[in-house]
Every structure is written in structure tokens, then in C-alpha cells.
């Protein structure tokens, strides 16, 4: 498979995890592309404007990328922290609308701020890796770390509190869960992950503009999670990989591909209302693996 496509799929999986984190505690946030854009601008601005980050101008040092990812993630996280308290008072579709508004505000800011390059955006972002394969390896590591952290949520107090809130927020509060704090943590973690992903994506795409953080992108990233399933991290990852690949794989059929893509997004929830990955299917998979390799800790407790 084409390494560039593979890299896009991995980035899609990371964004899907960013949507998954708030959804794990029942919060339908569509803010991910906004934070993704913010992270990307941090990387783009630093690596095109600051000599220490820019390297030769065509290639940039790997440590600079790491710092940019940390800064991009932090800025996105700080924005989430600042707006999280009031915004997370909203529930369900109202939260979704508020986060769409946030994405739009960030998009308009990115379009009009004096240093973000207007509609053209920022281009000629230097490359820390000479080949797409380098990006793929690096992103694989990042995705593995993100998945591992999400898997830890299955046994951590925080992770269980999130699920409890998703099932019944009122009951969760009455067993001593600080529900506003838990939701805020999930929202900030989602923003940090999106920001980090954006910083990496800006280098990979070589150019960054306000269109990366649009309403369309909100819907696409949400589709990753709806398609893959929002209970376990594996669902969004599969959804992100599959739905990023599909439009490209369908390219040979021409204009029909968008219709086919839409059909898949439509039929997925129809036949798999809880997404591809559900508790039952994971247990089934766990039993299958368990038989193969002796006793093994199940993925889903």
C-alpha cells in the first residue's frame, strides 16, 4: 500500500481517538478538527518562522517536531481547559452545536489573523522525514501510545467514571464521581491528542490552511467513531483507518466514489448500530485469541 495513504489513515485513526475520548463519557464533542488546526498552525508557524525549528528550510530536525507537537498539544489543551467548564454544561446535541461553533470561530480566526497566512495558509513546511515511510513509523508509535493509554482506561478509575457518566450522569454524581471534572479531563485529553496530531500532519501535508479545521472535518471524524463503535478504542481506530482509506481506494470508479462512500457511512450504522466493535464482538475475539495462546487477559474486562 502507498505509504502516503497509510499515513493519512493513521492520522485519521488518531483523530478518531480524539473524538472517542469525550464520547466515552457521553459527550458529543465535534471540536476535534478545531484543535487539530490549532496544533498544525503551531507547527507550521514555528517551523517556517523560527530558525531553530526550521532546520535547512526543506528538512527540519526531529527534536523540533517533538517540541512542536508538545506545544501544539498544549495550546489546544489550554483552549479546551479555558472553554471546557461552560461548554460542558451543555448536553447531547447542544454540546455538539457549541463545539461546531468553536470549530467555526477557530476557522475564521485562522483565516483572518495577521500571521496565519490568510486563505492561502502556510506552505513549504519543512520535512523531518525524508520519506513517507518515516512518517508512517513515527505515527504508528504515536498511535500505539494513544491506544495503550486508552486501553489503560478500561481498568483505571477515570476510565470507569467516564463510562458511568455515559450511562447515567446523575447516578454517577451520586456515587461520588466529580462529573464536571471527569468530563473536562476527557475534553482536554481529546484536544491535546488532536493538537499533537495536527502538528504532525502539518509537516506531512507540507501546507496548512484554515480548511483543515472545517465543519466537514467535524462530521468526517464523527463518522469514524460512529462507524467503528464508541465503546472501545479499537472501534474508532478501525473506523478512522477504514473511512480514510475508502475514498482513495474507490478512486478508480470516478465520481461514483463519493456516492459509494456516503452509502457506506449510511449503511454502517444501519447494520451495526453500535459500530463495528462492540463488547460482545470483543469478548468473542478475546475468547478466540485466548484459545490460540493459552490464558490471556481479555481486552474487555
Amino acid at each position, binding site marked *: 500500500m502507498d505509504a502516503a495513504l497509510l499515513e493519512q489513515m493513521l492520522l485519521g485513526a488518531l483523530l478518531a481517538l480524539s473524538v472517542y475520548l469525550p464520547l466515552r463519557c457521553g459527550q458529543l464533542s465535534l471540536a476535534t478538527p478545531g484543535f487539530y488546526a490549532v496544533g498544525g498552525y503551531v507547527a507550521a508557524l514555528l517551523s517556517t518562522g523560527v530558525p531553530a525549528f526550521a532546520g535547512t528550510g526543506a528538512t527540519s530536525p526531529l527534536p523540533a517536531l517533538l517540541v512542536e507537537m508538545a506545544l501544539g498539544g498544549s495550546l489546544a489543551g489550554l483552549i479546551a481547559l479555558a472553554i471546557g467548564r461552560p461548554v460542558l454544561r451543555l448536553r447531547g446535541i447542544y454540546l455538539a452545536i457549541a463545539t461546531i461553533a468553536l470549530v467555526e470561530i477557530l476557522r475564521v480566526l485562522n483565516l483572518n489573523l495577521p500571521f496565519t497566512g490568510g486563505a492561502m495558509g502556510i506552505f513549504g513546511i519543512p520535512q523531518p522525514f525524508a520519506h513517507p515511510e518515516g512518517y508512517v513509523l513515527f505515527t504508528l508509535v504515536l498511535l500505539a501510545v494513544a491506544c495503550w493509554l486508552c486501553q489503560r482506561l478500561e481498568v483505571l478509575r477515570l476510565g470507569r467514571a467516564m*463510562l458511568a457518566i455515559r*450511562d447515567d450522569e*446523575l447516578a454517577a454524581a*451520586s456515587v461520588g464521581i466529580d462529573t464536571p471534572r471527569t468530563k473536562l479531563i476527557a475534553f482536554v485529553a481529546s484536544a491535546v491528542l488532536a493538537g499533537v496530531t495536527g502538528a504532525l500532519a502539518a509537516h506531512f501535508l507540507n501546507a496548512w490552511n484554515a480548511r483543515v479545521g472545517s465543519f466537514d472535518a467535524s462530521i468526517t471524524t464523527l463518522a469514524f467513531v460512529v462507524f467503528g463503535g464508541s465503546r472501545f478504542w479499537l472501534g474508532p481506530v478501525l473506523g478512522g483507518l477504514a473511512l480514510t482509506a475508502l475514498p482513495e481506494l474507490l478512486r478508480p470508479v470516478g465520481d461514483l466514489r463519493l456516492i459509494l462512500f456516503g452509502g457506506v457511512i449510511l449503511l454502517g450504522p444501519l447494520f451495526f448500530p453500535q459500530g463495528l466493535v462492540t463488547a460482545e464482538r470483543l469478548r468473542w475475539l478475546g475468547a478466540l485469541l485466548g484459545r490460540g495462546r493459552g490464558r490471556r487477559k481479555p481486552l474487555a474486562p
Partner: protein
Amino acid sequence: MSANPNGTAPASAPLLQVEAISCRFGGLLALDRVSLELAEGEIFGLIGPNGAGKTTLFNVISGLTRPSGGRCLWRGRPTTGLGACGINRLGIARTFQNLRLFESLSVRENVLVGLHHAARAPMVGALVGSGPFRGHQGRLEAQALELLALLELDALAQQRAGDLPYGDRRRLEIARALATAPRLLLLDEPAAGMNPAEKDDLRRLIGRIRDHFALTVLIIEHHVPLMMRLCQRLAVLNFGERIALGSPAEVRRDPRVIEAYLGGQT
């Protein structure tokens, strides 16, 4: 469990004081200056016709509803503004009349969620699954199983809470509430939908957990004979007003109670 013959609270300082709580929803006065005091260790019953404001009073005590007037005191300190989470951490746990389990979680996980707040694990250890963290998890698991055994739910530990039959759900809600290590347990119609034999079992169970955890229990229940046997004291609400308070024997004779339950005499 024998009823306290003179119906007075024990002499120790009250655990919970409800002071002139009023609660207004639009034009409806759901609670009208209701006061009561709970002494440590007693089983206190709250009865009254439908719509009398019993559940509203529970919601106020547990921090889900903000009262329009009055306040609650926990060991002499006002609980105003603490919210449901803060009040639970004080040591007040509750069940819900129309069952609010975490239905997608297993029976065991429902209890673990309740246990979690009492025991913080070190964050770094938790992330990498260090030895001390695993020991901590093991203790929580053991506690969860112990609680489930006490409520005769241990055989169902791995089942999804949403798949349980009704009576088991009621007991699981009690187990989840107990997991938060409360001093005061609020039970909202725990016997609803149970047959007489199950109600008898429940009465013994409530006595047992009260003794086991040295709890104070405030219980709403419609089944008056059960309450007469279970509670040391009873308060009767009608249209948001406390119309009687005392031992079961006193309450039974109270003319206002008879009127509320049987209708006014004409």
C-alpha cells in the same frame, strides 16, 4: 428489629438535620418547610401518599435538587451548595425509585465505580500497572466481591447490569450505594414491585446491612406494614407538609395520618 417503644430519637447529636426545607417547582409547592432529625444508627421511615414530596426530599438531601428554602446540616455543618458528588463524599449514599444503574457495565463494575472514590491510586503506577497499583486494584476487586456476596449478587458479578431481573437490580443499587462507604443510606422505595416473600427478605437485608456497616438508614416505602416493623421512627408527608412524626405506634393513631390515607371524614 424491634421498634423503639417511645418513638424518641436516641440522645446522641443528630447525624442529619433537615431544617425547614421548602421546594417550589413553578406553581407547585412540593415541600413546605419540612424538618426532621436523624440520629446515628436509627432506621427512619418516610411515608405518605403519591406526590407527597418524599422523593423530592431525598433529592434535596442528596444534592440533586436545590431547595427553595431551608437547609440540611450534616453533623452540624450545612451541606448547601455541595452538589450530589460532594454530598456523597460526606457519607450520604442513595438508591433511586426508578433504578439508575450503569446498565452497560457489569454488576462488578457498578460496584467498583462506587468503590473507586474512596481509594486513589498513584497516577504513574496506575498508568504502567505497577505492583502497588495492581495490589490496590486487587483489594478493590476483593471488596467488590465481598459487597456483592453480602447482597447475594456474587454469582452474577460478570453479568451486564442492564440484563438483571428487577429484584437483583434493586439489590445492586444498594450494593453500589454501600460501595461509597456511606454513614447514611437513603433508600427510595426499595421494595417496589416485590412480592411479600421478597419484601420480607429485603426487610431482613436492610437490618443486616445496617448492623454490618453501623449505618443510619432513611427509607421511603409505600408498604406500611413493612415500615411499621422496620423503622424506629416514621415521618408522614402529605402535599409537601410533614403531618406526623413519631414511633410507628404513634403515627398509626394520628388522626391526620388516617385522614391523609383514608380521606377526610365528612
